[in-house]
């Protein structure tokens, strides 16, 4: 942990505190929601009143309660997608980098093709074929990110696999899986996790964008991006219905990126040249 968070700048600390706060809102928010999720409590799109500090949405539901509920899907879907991307990327990258068999050029070509296609377009094509659902969204976002992770893992594996201690392990007659698990994985973890902040930010952006386009979660689900999307027309009557979830998403992605940036710096990896968010 020290290795990751040992030496944080003041702005990284602020980012860290905001991040913890947003995650707390997303996880524990539903417990604090004062009103039921799907019942109208007043006239649609009224501005803040005593009972509803952020007013009501286009169906007269409480904006505060829906916002408290709406963070779970943002955090959960983006989180699962990132974990899946790393799991898949590690497996493919290690196999390609260590075996240097047919898999290696194949992986490189596939990721070239994936990178020659805008990520959002890939998701839209997938939704057209498989329909809008949480599963499609999560798998799609994970698939978009996987080649990027696999490339980094592959490069780091190639670098390690010619080292003396790996050759020694191979000469001792250890099985390939043992060499990879004991000699290579521990040594590439640093450079592989350096990008995790970027990948998570990107997952949040993609998940939120698809939900905003109305092609992911469907009403009456409460989700920050979906709340913004379905209340766009009511923005003049009650600006808070847009402002509050937008501010939460903004603080979430910014703090993840700031903290991720600081962690990468601590790991001694230059952040300047890395392929930024997109």
């Amino acid at each position, binding site marked *: 942990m020290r290795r990751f968070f040992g030496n944080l700048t003041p702005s990284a600390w602020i980012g860290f505190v905001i991040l913890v706060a947003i995650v707390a809102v997303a996880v524990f928010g539903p417990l604090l929601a004062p009103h039921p999720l799907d019942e109208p409590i007043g006239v649609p799109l009224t501005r803040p009143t005593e009972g509803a500090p952020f007013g009501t949405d286009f169906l007269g539901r409480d904006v505060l309660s829906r916002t408290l509920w709406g963070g779970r899907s943002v955090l959960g879907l983006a989180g699962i997608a990132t974990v899946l991307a790393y799991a898949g990327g590690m497996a493919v990258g290690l196999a390609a980098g260590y075996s240097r068999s047919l898999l290696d050029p194949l992986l490189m070509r596939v990721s070239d093709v994936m990178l020659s296609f*805008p990520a959002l377009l890939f998701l839209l094509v997938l939704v057209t074929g498989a329909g809008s659902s949480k599963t499609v969204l999560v798998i799609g976002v994970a698939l978009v990110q996987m080649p990027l992770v696999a490339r980094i893992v592959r490069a780091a594996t190639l670098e390690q696999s010619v080292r003396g201690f790996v050759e020694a392990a191979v000469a001792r007659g250890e099985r390939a899986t043992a060499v990879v698990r004991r000699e290579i994985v521990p040594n590439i973890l640093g450079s592989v996790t350096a990008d995790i902040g970027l990948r998570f930010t990107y997952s949040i952006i993609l998940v939120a964008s698809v939900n905003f386009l109305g092609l992911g979660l469907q009403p009456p689900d409460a989700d920050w991006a979906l709340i913004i999307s379905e209340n766009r027309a009511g923005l003049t009557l009650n600006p808070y219905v847009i402002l509050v979830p937008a501010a939460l998403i903004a603080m979430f992605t910014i703090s993840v990126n700031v903290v991720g940036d600081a962690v990468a710096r601590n790991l001694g990896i230059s952040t300047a040249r890395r392929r930024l968010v997109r």
Partner: protein
Amino acid sequence: MSSTSDLATPGLHLLRERREHPVLLFVARRLAAAIATLLIVSILVFVGTEVLPGDAAGAVLGRNATPAQVEEMRALMGLDRPAPERYLDWLGGVLTGDLGNSAAGFAAGGVSPIWEEISGKIANSFALAGITAALMIPLSLLLGIVAAVRAGRALDHAISISSLAIISLPEFIIGSLLILVFFSWLDLLPPVSLIAPDTNPLTQPDVLVLPVLTLLGASLAASIRMVRAGMVEALNAEYVTMARLNGFRERMVVTRYALRNALAPSVQVLAQNIQYLVGGIVVTEYLFNYPGLGKELVDAVAIRDVREVQSVALLIAAFYVGLNIAADLLVVLLVPRLRTQR
């Protein structure tokens, strides 16, 4: 793309020819790779939209359709034929300029060619992306250079921190916040971009301002950071120190020595960001109801208009790949060393 895989390509025997027509050969190689990539993309798009479970004919007709009606619609849309045949039919059509017919047309009871539906929208999207790119390129070079020259000082910190913050935001958040400020609060600009069909969006500048600002925000932030990184690297190089020791004025050192060397990597970054505009434009157009290709695509996905999604996706991918080649070519022209290296 990756330097390691380039080493493995058996191209040594071509070295002599390469010396004679290095740029031509480079272009030919990239074009061949691009065509291969686009073929794979076309297969992926087709498989992703048609072979996965999902019923386009049923989606067109809605929930109340009888099985017989669905069968009839499947035949009308050509969905009853085997997949490879449909793929070749579609690809052949696209190559000869026939993008197929939209499902929205079938649903309305007629035949409506996709090209007629999207041609005006392509122009609208180009207007939006063109203005954004025309503003983004000079602004990112200027701000990136200023930040690099002032590296470590207050102005650099201000530029770097605000660009790191903006780069983390999805476009629809930037756009929504802009609408809140410029429409709800200041009441200066319209929140939706209403443009009548067959009118040039350039004649209504007020509807373009917020979409352009939205796209600019996200792409500018990313490119400023990259330009700054390249420029900082160049300013720390020995030839810059040498130029300073020779007593050249700082302005001359920055423009003549550092900038020219920082420009080549910046071109690739700017091209990446223009490519990114292609993705960002989809969300931005949807947010502002801007009648462009991106909004058309989202609408097509929403009603699961398979043929239209396929054709539009392939068009966008072709544009994306073409842009990549153009950027690589520009870099090769800027840096003579690269002409023989690959």
